[in-house]
């Protein structure tokens, strides 16, 4: 059933959120975001199959392109962070503290 695919995508998405909010390692956070993107992709493909239309496939490809761009930028940020502080801890940055 198509719903099974969608539920799987929800599960993966929730795990992705969990990774973002509960981990401090910036690399893990980043990979959790990739996981969320993939969950969204799975939903796209599943809907595409449901309606027998290939627009979802195109969108999935767009998401991949965006993910690639995001990977390039996010990894650049990670490198900069490591260069500055020598750490991979997101708690090192608390400039927003009130």
């Amino acid at each position, binding site marked *: 059933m198509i*719903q099974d695919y969608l539920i799987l995508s929800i599960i993966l998405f929730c795990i992705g959120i969990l990774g973002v909010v509960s981990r401090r390692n910036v690399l893990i956070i980043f990979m959790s975001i990739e*996981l969320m993107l993939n969950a969204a*992709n799975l939903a796209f493909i599943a809907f595409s199959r449901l309606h027998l239309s290939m627009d979802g496939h195109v969108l999935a490809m767009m998401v991949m392109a965006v993910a690639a761009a995001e990977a390039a930028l996010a990894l650049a940020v990670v490198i900069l962070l490591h260069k500055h502080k020598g750490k991979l801890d997101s708690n090192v940055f608390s400039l927003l503290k009130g």
Partner: protein
Amino acid sequence: MFADWLFTGFSILSVLGAIGLVIFRHPMNGAMSLVITLISLAGLYALLSAKLIFVIQLIVYAGAIMSLILFIIMFLNVQNDDLPNEKDRFLYLIGGGVVLAPVFFFLKKIVQSIPGTEATIVGNGFGGVKEVGLVLFKDWLLPFEIVSILLLVALIGAVVIAGKRRMSK
């Protein structure tokens, strides 16, 4: 039903891989378990008759992007001291799970209200390179070109951000 078995197997693998990602302390372990998820997702795409996406998922995601991430992890030469001390991460994970449960059930409720069909594999004429390519270059030409600009910007941005020499101040 062979396909059902495959679906069950791939979904268990992908969920396990995702759970591994958020549990392992060292990013290298996390990355390897993410690779498992990505590959099993590729399998699921194949089950959904998305042949082109199946291939791209393997080549671009599991191949290119993941090797980039792994390369960066190794490039940074992450020592144990560099990693944040996350002894309490299981507490956070459980708490997060509790908070996220309503979200999950809400989405699940929505999904179950959708009239579904059997995900039988569709043969020719769906999801292949030719068909997706026709859609892509007919209906989605403008977004496609915009994405190319996005990639160019990201490329330049990454060079500018990561390529900075030591801050002068």
